[in-house]
Structures are given as structure tokens and as C-alpha cells.
């Protein structure tokens, strides 16, 4: 979706403000929102692409008004409600009012280290051949899906070079919709800054994105 999350090239947000000696979290509720989000991945059964979409799928004004962990919290609530794991009345009163839905397992303290260490690799075996090779010129397609995508607007329609064939990876556009992993070849595609931002752009800048094959067309 062309939402507020797709920020590359947007003007007017001001300077970057580094914070010296920044703490990992800025409030206790941030810690809890972070941990709840990670822990609920086990019984919740959603994937990372569904999580990202749950955070970005809102009015741009709302997205921009929320802090990072407020977005995480809103995304978590959306995922929980979609699956009837929690209902609004329960969040309002702060207690369980309805019987829990059966879940296959939850994250136990003894599992934490192993679950984090294992992570969620997204590379998959494939019998298909990559359509592109390093050095090929490609065009990022002009797509504007209402659903989740990881092709940022600032590269759409622009010409780039395949820098690296990464491998075959889970395709977020399918995975976020529950339509299966649908693994696709993934490439690092390099763009000249002037191709993206015009002739006046800094000639010393190049930018790359990692793009799945369905995002690209040959020239």
C-alpha cells in the first residue's frame, strides 16, 4: 500500500536528531509492548509480513502521529482482534472476559534463547532459475497494490542494475495476505542517484533496494 510508511524521498521531516547515550527503551511500556509483540508471535501464528502490514495499514495521519512502539502496539492489537484472540471490551476493562481460544503453544522462558537464536530465515529451496544475472539492466515496475509490498515508491519506474542475485526468498506480497510464502528470486538492485532524483542530484550517490523478481522487468 502507498502508505505513510513508504518514506524514501519525502520532504519536510527535518533534521536527523541523534541522542547521545540513548537507552534501549525510553519507557517501561515500550519494553512491555516490544516483548508482548515478540512473545505473541508464537501462539498468534502470524508472520513478519503480516506484522508489518498490521502496523502500516492505517491512515497516514495516524501513522505519522504515533511513536514507533505505539505502532507496534496498534499492530499487535489489530492482529489479535483479527484472529479473535482478544476483543475490544477486554482491552477496555483490562481483563479477560471471554474464554481463551485454544493455541498450540506459547513462548516459555526456557524457549526464549533458542527461539531468538533460530530466528526466521526466509531463504527457500527452488527448482526455478533466476531470470536476471548480475550486471543486467532492469526496470522496477510501476505497481501500486492496496496490499502489502516492499517495493518503495521512489524506485518504481526507474532503471537499475542487478548487483547481486541473493537467492530465493519468501515473497512478502503473498505472505502478508496469508496467500502462502510463494518464494521468489531476490536481487540487490542498484540505482544511480540521478536516475532516482534527477540531474541535479549528487552524482556520487548510488542507492540499492532488495527486490523480488515480480517487482522487476527486463529492459
Amino acid at each position, binding site marked *: 500500500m502507498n502508505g505513510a510508511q513508504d518514506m524514501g524521498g519525502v520532504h519536510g521531516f527535518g533534521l536527523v536528531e541523534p541522542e547521545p547515550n540513548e537507552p534501549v527503551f525510553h519507557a517501561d511500556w515500550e*519494553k512491555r509492548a516490544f516483548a508482548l509483540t515478540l512473545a505473541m508471535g508464537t501462539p498468534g501464528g502470524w508472520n513478519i509480513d503480516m506484522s508489518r502490514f498490521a502496523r502500516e495499514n492505517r491512515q497516514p495521519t495516524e501513522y505519522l502521529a504515533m511513536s514507533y512502539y505505539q505502532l507496534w502496539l496498534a499492530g499487535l492489537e489489530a492482529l489479535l482482534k483479527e484472529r479473535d484472540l482478544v476483543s475490544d471490551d477486554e482491552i477496555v476493562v483490562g481483563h479477560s472476559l471471554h474464554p481463551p481460544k485454544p493455541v498450540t503453544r*506459547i513462548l516459555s522462558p526456557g524457549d*526464549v534463547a533458542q527461539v531468538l537464536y533460530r530466528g526466521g530465515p526466509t531463504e527457500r529451496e527452488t527448482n526455478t532459475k533466476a531470470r536476471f544475472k548480475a550486471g543486467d539492466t532492469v526496470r522496477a515496475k510501476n505497481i501500486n497494490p492496496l496490499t502489502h509490498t*516492499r517495493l518503495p515508491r521512489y524506485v518504481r519506474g526507474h532503471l537499475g542494475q542487478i548487483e547481486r542475485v541473493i537467492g530465493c526468498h519468501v515473497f512478502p506480497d503473498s505472505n502478508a495476505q496469508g496467500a502462502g510464502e510463494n518464494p521468489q528470486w531476490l536481487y540487490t538492485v542498484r540505482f544511480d542517484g540521478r536516475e532516482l532524483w534527477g540531474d541535479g542530484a549528487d552524482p556520487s550517490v548510488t542507492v540499492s533496494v532488495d527486490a523480488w523478481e515480480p517487482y522487476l522487468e527486463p529492459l
Partner: protein
Amino acid sequence: MSGHDHDHDHSELTETQLRVRALETVLTEKGYVDPAALDLLIETYEKKVGPRNGARVVAKAWADAAFRARLFKDATLAIAELGYAGRQGEHIVALENTPMRHNMVVCTLCSCYPWPVLGLPPVWYKSAPYRSRAVADPRGVLKDFGVRLPKDTEIRVWDSTAEIRYLVIPMRPAGTEGWSEDKLAELVTRDSMIGTGLPKEPAK
């Protein structure tokens, strides 16, 4: 800022705090989460996993040529030798800074960041100013960090749009010949591994 704005911010924060507490209570009562697991998750990223991990990787890459070669061949494997792996670092690529090329990493679409080596991202990395400008005006962003590079140095920006996580390997500072990896690691800043900073110079 007026008093009214301040009150407004304050009440919003309180509302969020209450909402998180309510949600945690509901999820615990339903048996979906174990609060001890939550504590352990928080402790892991507050105490154990952070940019000191990445600094050790960089210091080793500076001091150990064979490791450096393995790192640029397959960073995920090489970094796992030091025990760092897993969530948000399943597929890591190391980027080599040279006098000709400076690498900078961003995630314009959310906040993708190599957790096992850098920990959780700082607020500025997740912020709209960084996400919007890093790809369009990286030299301007570097200026915000007080970093100026020669005009002809290529600035290479990596937008982490997939599950590949990037770790910048900055150039080894001059005057550190013969240093141990531990001593070298002290020069490696978090920002130098994102590409918005440079390593510290050795004290003269």
C-alpha cells in the same frame, strides 16, 4: 511548548501505558503469554545483545585477514563463529568501506536492522527524518551526524527492503597497528556500523 500541549502529551502517554498494561493482563489471564518470558526478552535486548557484538565483529575483521575474507564471503556464517545469529540477522551481508566508497544503511519502509550484531535500532534510525532523507540526501544526513566525506567518495546507500541485514565494516583507523581485538573494538561505534559515523581515532 504551551502548558496545554504538555498536558496533552502527558495524557496520551498515560493512555498508552494503561493500554499496554491492560493488554498484558488480558494476554496473561488467557494464558497466551508467560510474563517471565517477557522479562527475559527485555533483558536479552537491554543487557546481552547490542552494538558491542558488532564491534567485536569489526575488530576481528580489522585484525584477522582470514576472518575478514570469510566475513565478506558469507557474513551470516562468519558472524555465527562469534556466537551472534538469529532473529533479524538471519541473512547478514557485510559492507566494506574504502577510501573510494562509504556505505550507509537505512530501512525506508520500517526499521529493519541487524539485531544480533547491533541490538535494537536507535530512535533516529526509525524516525521519519532519517528514513526519508537517507536515500535522497545521504550527505546531508551525514552532516547531521557531523560527518563530512570527500566530494568524490561514492556514497552507497542500502535500503533494507527484504530480510537481508547489512553491517558496515568501517575502515581501520590509522595508528592502530599491532592493537589487540579488544582494544580495537573500543574504537568501533554503533553509528560507524550503520554508516552514519566513523570509528573513534586512537588517543594521541
